[in-house]
């Protein structure tokens, strides 16, 4: 049985092409996904991300629990509303999921995890939470709309109650706060995103989601589907769980080392294995690829390097660059002249540092 967000009928009325995404019936585009991509890079677009799972954690020992559960250190979260990106690892150091954790107070944190991994995430979190007496409460009563692009914040702020506008305008990156939306609806507004543009991700009670979407539409925010979301996050150099990493991959091999906090004395799940891997030297690395000639890099294509074969993880045509880019996992060491096997044809590609695009512009060297 496919699940539907509360915005399902709204998407269909807008002419969306719907696809199954991790068991959810979601819009892939409303016409041209390339136009939706450009709308986000140049103006403001919105995505229904209500399929993502919101989990509230309550209890005296919640912070202590998260120190144990997450590979990044929640002690970086000191101010109310601050958010942190982290991996949740298993005992072997494999990635169960990536998530964002928000800090309310020491007895209340909020996690936002992926939709496709919902069941295994909840099972794992509940299992680990028992020893800490932490209550794990899923919040299916929330919807979520991501509003992204250089004009996204202005358009959202224009819809807020006057008393909230200045405060939300000053919200720092990776910080969230409560505010009143249209008709006084209660919003949880986070300055986060998955596109490489500025903007907000807004958690809204399900019964107000359609009204918020309509208000954003009237304010000139363009609906964008999962197709544009995927090309935007790839250009922005952001990993997609299941494609770029999973339980069989260590964070070291997925360019997620920056999220691993090996601070002294903190015993988080997977730490011992990660330390051993680091000491032994990581065998594979994740790199960015750019294809300068015509063609499209895609998931699963073989990558040929001086040190052996690798493979493309996320790969796509990148609308901002008008050429194909990809993430690939290849053997560590100087890769030499790198080629990709595109349906039997060996095509030369450039190995680059990513992100490929930031704040609407191609990065240097792309």
């Amino acid at each position, binding site marked *: 049985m496919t699940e539907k967000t509360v915005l399902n009928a709204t998407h269909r009325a807008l002419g969306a092409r719907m696809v199954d995404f991790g068991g959810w019936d979601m819009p892939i585009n409303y016409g*041209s*996904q*390339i136009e939706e991509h450009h709308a986000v890079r140049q103006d403001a677009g919105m995505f229904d991300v209500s399929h993502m799972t919101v989990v509230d954690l309550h209890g005296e020992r919640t912070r202590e629990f998260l120190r144990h559960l997450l590979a990044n250190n929640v002690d970086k979260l000191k101010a109310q509303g601050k958010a942190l990106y982290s991996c949740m690892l298993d005992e072997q150091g494999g990635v169960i999921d990536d998530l964002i954790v928000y800090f309310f107070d020491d007895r209340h944190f909020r996690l936002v995890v992926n939709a496709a991994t919902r069941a295994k995430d909840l099972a794992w979190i509940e299992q680990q939470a028992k020893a800490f007496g932490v209550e794990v409460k899923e919040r299916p009563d929330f919807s979520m709309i991501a509003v992204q692009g250089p004009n996204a914040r202005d358009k959202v702020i224009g819809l807020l109650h006057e008393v909230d506008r200045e405060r939300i305008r000053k919200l720092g990156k990776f910080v969230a706060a409560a505010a009143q939306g249209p008709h006084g609806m209660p919003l949880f507004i986070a300055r986060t995103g998955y596109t490489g543009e500025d903007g907000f991700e807004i958690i809204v009670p399900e019964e107000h989601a359609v009204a918020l979407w309509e208000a954003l539409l009237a304010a000139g925010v363009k609906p964008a589907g999962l197709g544009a979301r995927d*090309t935007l996050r790839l250009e922005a150099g952001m990993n997609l769980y299941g494609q770029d990493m999973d339980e069989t991959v260590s964070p070291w091999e997925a360019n997620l080392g920056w999220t691993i906090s090996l601070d002294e004395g903190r015993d988080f799940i997977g730490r011992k294995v990660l330390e051993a891997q680091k000491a032994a030297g990581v065998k594979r690395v994740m790199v960015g690829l750019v294809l300068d000639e015509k063609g*499209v890099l895609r998931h699963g294509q073989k990558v040929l390097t001086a040190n052996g074969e690798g493979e493309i993880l996320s790969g796509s*045509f990148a609308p901002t660059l008008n050429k194909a880019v990809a993430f690939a996992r290849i053997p560590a060491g100087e890769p030499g002249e790198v080629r990709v096997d595109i349906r039997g044809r060996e095509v030369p590609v450039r190995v680059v540092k990513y992100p490929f695009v930031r704040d609407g512009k191609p990065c240097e060297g792309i």
Partner: protein
Amino acid sequence: MSEIPGDLKFLKSHEWARAEDNGNVRVGISDHAQGQLGDVVYVELPEIGASVQVGHGVATVESVKAASDIYTPVSGEIVEVNEALADSPETINEDAYGEGWLFVVKPSDRAELAELLDADAYAEQLENEDH
């Protein structure tokens, strides 16, 4: 969805064929197919003069989402390809049955045309796919 032109014949795999007055056959993909593929970003066309066999892949249409092999609905020789698609592949999305054509075949056996679906049969196939 736009009307399916009545003068076209179709392969089940969504290629259309139009028999022209000079006896050649122009080939493209259906409006339904372009909608399924989404934004087309790259087209690989056959060489002029190439000999092609009915039902074989002779071109590739790549969208942001996927690469799709294009089969020729008739055997024969490629006599024309749509060079304009190199610069504006999105024409396939905008006008699948017109300016978005892919190639023209000089057929070696015109009887093959009779094997294809007519517009009504193709429309029926699409309807069944929807259910």
